[in-house]
């Protein structure tokens, strides 16, 4: 691995601002690395080499003359392929959208472009951010850089795989039922689902309007806060202000029943969560158990709302072009035709109560600590285990409630040696305090210094496909 791909976003930004690193030199280093490792990872579904080099050259000239516009000037950011980027196809990883070329940037891309960020290409996703990992789509699914035979999580799978494999310092994802936090968890990264509507969804292909969130995936908490600073609605940052405040005095509510009673986590995941709670105590936080409604209640309400809203988006295509979907997407969405209007309204009413319960818990605690995935990442071709683990998670409660939630690495799976993860949950628009807790945990643990065996990815051989 060359030095440049290994730079954190923060370090690259500092080097560019100090004119020690040119954006052109940086992107060339990353492009060479992408060329070497992406055939093994399949994170990118489209690369714009000439265009991004041209933009990097322009950024270099501007910085030489006038200095940086923002901390992201000259920094390449990965974009999940459900976000519109002007002049590029937004395929949503689907046959149905292969010819759709965006004429304007999504609002969040526009913000980043104004800041001088670069967009090297579009990243793999589950089809329409729902159906995956699948091998019956026009592009292969992204692989987990920690072990490319394993699932990287989804649906923002390419975003996490690209960042974990050091192809990019940061990427954007979307999270409707956990699609930022799941791949961040499986790839050992930091993934934030912000407060609902803190980051604009305009120009992002919807999965479920009232559950969709846009957020960053990075290798460190500091990098994550830096990206949120640039894409969040004005007036709520800065998010980097409390990163060095430590954990002393923090009140942490441990939602232990999620993984000990509601869905029994794998033993290595449960141990990692206990050890994480002990880290908070050791660093001076006060940790006590807190109860929320059962995980199953959150999940069932989420599913009614998510699938109903998704079916509303896809109604016409599912009626007329169903054969063009991957099987997994089609199967998941068709259920949405068979919920009634009453079901949907009742789910939204129950959502009011569930959201209130989360807010109430956060009256007594600064952050909540909860499980993320209940299992380590499984093999990407093991359909039975993928089905089994798909619902074994504790991410949906915070899509339902709209509270910000961040995924952090907290261990390694006992058998597979792949990342395990936890979630921290904050008050609405309390991202600065949430980042404080996340940074304190990150600094007190060794996990951010671990990384995949990147040299093993430079094989030149394409990703293996399961026999079907």
């Amino acid at each position, binding site marked *: 691995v060359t030095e440049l791909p290994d730079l954190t976003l923060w370090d690259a930004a500092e080097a560019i601002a100090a004119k020690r690193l040119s954006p052109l030199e940086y992107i060339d280093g990353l492009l060479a690395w992408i060329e070497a490792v992406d055939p093994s990872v399949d994170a990118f579904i489209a690369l714009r080499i000439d265009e991004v080099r041209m933009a990097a050259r322009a950024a270099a000239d501007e910085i030489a003359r006038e200095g940086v516009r923002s901390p992201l000037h000259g920094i390449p950011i990965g974009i999940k392929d459900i976000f519109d980027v002007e002049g590029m196809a937004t395929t949503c990883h689907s046959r149905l959208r292969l010819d759709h070329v965006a004429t304007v940037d999504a609002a969040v891309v526009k913000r980043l472009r104004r800041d001088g960020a670069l967009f090297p290409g579009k990243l793999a996703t589950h089809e329409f951010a729902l159906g995956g990992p699948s091998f019956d789509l026009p592009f292969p699914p992204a692989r987990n850089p920690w072990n490319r035979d394993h699932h990287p999580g989804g649906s923002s799978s390419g975003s996490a795989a690209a960042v974990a494999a050091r192809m990019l310092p940061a990427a954007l994802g979307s999270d409707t039922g956990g699609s930022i936090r799941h791949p961040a968890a499986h790839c050992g990264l930091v993934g934030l689902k912000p407060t*609902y509507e803190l980051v604009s969804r*305009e120009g992002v292909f919807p999965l479920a309007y*009232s559950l969709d969130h846009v957020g960053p995936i990075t290798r460190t908490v500091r990098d994550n806060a830096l990206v949120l600073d640039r894409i969040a609605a004005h007036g709520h940052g800065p998010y980097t202000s409390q990163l060095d405040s430590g954990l002393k005095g923090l009140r942490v509510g441990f939602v232990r029943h999620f993984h000990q009673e509601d869905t029994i986590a794998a033993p290595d995941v449960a141990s990692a969560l206990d050890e994480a709670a002990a880290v908070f105590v050791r660093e001076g936080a006060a940790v006590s158990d807190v109860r929320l409604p059962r995980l199953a209640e959150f999940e069932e309400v989420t599913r009614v709302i998510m699938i109903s809203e998704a079916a509303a988006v896809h109604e016409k295509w599912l009626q007329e072009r169903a054969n063009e979907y991957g099987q997994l997407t*089609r199967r998941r969405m*068709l*259920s949405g035709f*068979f919920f009634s209007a009453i079901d949907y309204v*009742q789910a939204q009413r*129950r959502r009011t109560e569930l959201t209130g319960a989360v807010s109430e818990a956060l009256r007594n605690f600064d952050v909540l600590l909860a499980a993320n995935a209940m299992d380590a990442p499984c093999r990407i071709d093991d359909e039975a285990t993928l089905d089994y683990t798909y619902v074994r998670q504790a991410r949906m409660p915070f899509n339902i409630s*709209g509270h910000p939630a961040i995924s952090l690495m907290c261990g390694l799976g006992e058998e597979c040696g792949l990342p395990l993860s936890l979630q921290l949950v904050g008050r609405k628009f309390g991202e600065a305090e949430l980042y404080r807790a996340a940074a304190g945990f990150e600094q007190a643990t060794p996990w951010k210094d671990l990384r995949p065996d990147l040299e093993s990815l430079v094989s030149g051989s394409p990703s293996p496909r399961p026999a079907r």
Partner: protein
Amino acid sequence: MAEGGPEMTSDWNAVDIDTLVRWAGLEQTARSFGAEIGDAVKNAARIRGGFLRPLNPAVEPAELLSAAPAAAAAEHSS
């Protein structure tokens, strides 16, 4: 509204699948994916059965957008 009123829940389990398919406009889809539609009907019934329970009539549907910052809403229209 007063508390303790009756709750309506929907139960489509008794409706035959051909009627459901027509109602949903999925006749064309059913020609190739009839089994998947059958699974979808069962899946919806299973999920619905899991969460429906009496709710206090005073509980209104969630309105997340009302909690969104004005700046974010403004960005949507810009």
